[in-house]
C-alpha cells in the first residue's frame, strides 16, 4: 500500500498504467475504491492513472480541518509534486471536480484538462434545489421508508447537511460491491462527527463564478440527466470559456456505480487531447447525449449566446 506524507498527513494512493498522466479524485464520503473496479483498469490501458484517498477518507490521514476545495487542491498539488507529475488531466467525481477546478484556477500550468463527473460547485448552490431535482421522483418512495420526506429533506439540508449525511447512514448501500451492507462505517462517522468537513466542503472558499470564468483549462463535464447537480452543468456552459458538457440519460449523481461504461465512452477522447476536444466554435459548447427534450433548450441557450447567468 503506497502512502506519502503530504501537508502533514499520510496520503494513500495507487498508480497503474503507462502514458499521459490522469489523476482521479473521488467525492466526499467516498474513497479511491470508486475508481478501482472498472475505471482504473480501463483508463490504465492508455494512461498512467493515479487514484488517491482524499484527506479524511479511506486510508489517508484525518484532520479536524482542511476540507475546502482550496485546501484539498493544495493536497492534490503536493501529490503531483511528490510523484513528479508535471501536468495531468484530472477527473473529479462530485466534490472531487471542485478540487480539480480549484487547482486549475491556482496552477493552470499543472492541469491539462478537467473532467467534472457530476460535480456540485459551492458557488452555484442556488441551482441545486430539491424542488427542481429531476431525480426526486425516482427516490422519494425509497427514501420515505427511512423517514426522509420532501419537507424533512428541505429543512435538514438548509439547517445542517451533516444531518442529511447521518440520516443517509441508515440506508443500505444501493450499488456496488457493498450493495445491501450498512452505509455507516466507523471511519465515516468519525469524519462527519469529529471534523469540519460538512461546513468546509460546502464553502465557496474562493472558487467563485468570477474565478471560474477565468479558467482557460479545457473542461469536459458529464452529468447524470436526473442528477440534482445537472443544472449546474448546463449553467457552466455560459460561464466557462473552454467547456463542453455531456449528459448520461436515465441516471443521476452516482452513474459511476452503474453506468460507468457510458461515462468512459464520453471522456476517452477528451483525455487523449483536451484542447483539441474543446478547442472550438460556440456551437460545440452545447450539452448533448440526452434524449430528454426538456434539457436541450437550456443547452441551446448557451449555444445561441444568451445572457450569462440567466439560468
Amino acid at each position: 500500500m503506497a502512502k506519502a506524507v503530504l501537508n502533514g498527513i499520510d496520503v494513500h494512493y495507487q498508480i497503474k498504467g503507462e502514458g499521459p498522466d490522469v489523476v482521479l479524485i473521488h467525492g466526499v464520503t467516498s474513497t479511491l475504491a470508486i475508481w478501482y473496479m472498472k475505471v482504473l483498469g480501463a483508463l490504465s490501458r492508455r494512461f498512467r492513472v493515479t487514484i488517491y484517498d482524499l484527506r479524511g477518507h479511506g486510508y489517508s490521514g484525518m484532520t479536524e480541518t482542511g476540507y475546502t476545495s482550496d485546501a484539498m487542491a493544495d493536497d492534490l498539488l503536493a501529490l503531483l509534486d511528490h510523484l513528479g507529475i508535471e501536468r495531468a488531466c484530472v477527473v473529479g467525481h462530485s466534490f472531487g471536480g471542485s478540487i480539480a477546478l480549484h487547482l486549475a484556477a491556482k496552477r493552470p500550468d499543472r492541469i491539462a484538462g478537467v473532467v467534472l463527473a457530476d460535480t456540485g460547485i459551492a458557488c452555484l448552490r442556488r441551482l441545486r434545489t430539491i424542488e427542481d431535482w429531476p431525480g426526486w421522483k425516482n427516490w422519494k418512495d425509497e427514501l420515505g421508508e427511512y423517514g426522509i420526506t420532501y419537507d424533512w429533506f428541505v429543512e435538514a439540508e438548509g439547517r445542517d447537511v451533516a444531518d442529511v449525511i447521518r440520516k443517509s447512514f441508515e440506508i443500505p448501500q444501493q450499488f456496488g460491491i457493498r450493495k445491501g451492507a450498512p452505509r455507516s462505517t466507523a471511519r465515516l462517522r468519525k469524519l462527519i462527527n469529529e471534523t469540519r468537513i460538512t461546513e468546509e466542503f460546502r464553502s465557496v472558499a474562493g472558487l467563485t463564478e468570477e474565478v471560474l470564468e477565468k479558467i482557460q483549462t479545457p473542461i469536459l463535464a458529464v452529468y447524470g440527466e436526473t442528477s440534482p447537480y445537472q443544472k449546474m452543468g448546463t449553467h457552466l456552459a455560459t460561464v466557462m470559456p473552454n467547456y463542453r458538457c455531456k449528459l448520461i440519460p436515465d441516471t443521476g449523481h452516482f452513474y459511476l456505480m452503474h453506468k460507468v461504461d457510458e461515462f468512459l465512452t464520453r471522456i476517452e477522447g477528451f483525455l487523449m487531447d483536451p484542447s483539441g476536444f474543446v478547442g472550438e466554435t460556440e456551437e460545440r459548447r452545447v450539452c448533448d447525449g440526452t434524449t430528454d427534450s426538456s434539457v436541450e433548450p437550456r443547452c441551446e441557450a448557451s449555444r445561441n449566446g444568451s445572457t450569462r447567468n440567466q439560468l
Partner: protein
Amino acid sequence: MQNLDRSVIRTDLLKILDELRDDWEFSGEVTEESGLFTQLEFESIDAVALGSALEDHYNQSLPFAEFLTKAAERKAADIKVGELVDFLTSHLRNGEGERA
C-alpha cells in the same frame, strides 16, 4: 511459478487479513464462511487494500478488480473468504500475469 496448495493459500490469506486489521478495524473470528462486507465489516477501500496486499505478498498481478466487479453484479454482492481462497487458488496456480 510454484503451484500453491489451497490450504497454504488459505493460511496466507488469513494471515494477511490479520495484518490488515490496524487499518480495517475488525476484531472477530475469520472463517471461510465469513462475508467480507456483511460480517467482517469491510469497506470498499479495505477490499482494494486487500487486493494490493495479496499482489505484494505473491509478487504477482491478479485480476482482483474483475473479481470484485463480478461479485458486485450478483444479486447478493458479498464475498465469502472461501470464495477468495478459491479465486487465489485458481489464479496463482495458473501463474498468470506475473509481475516484471
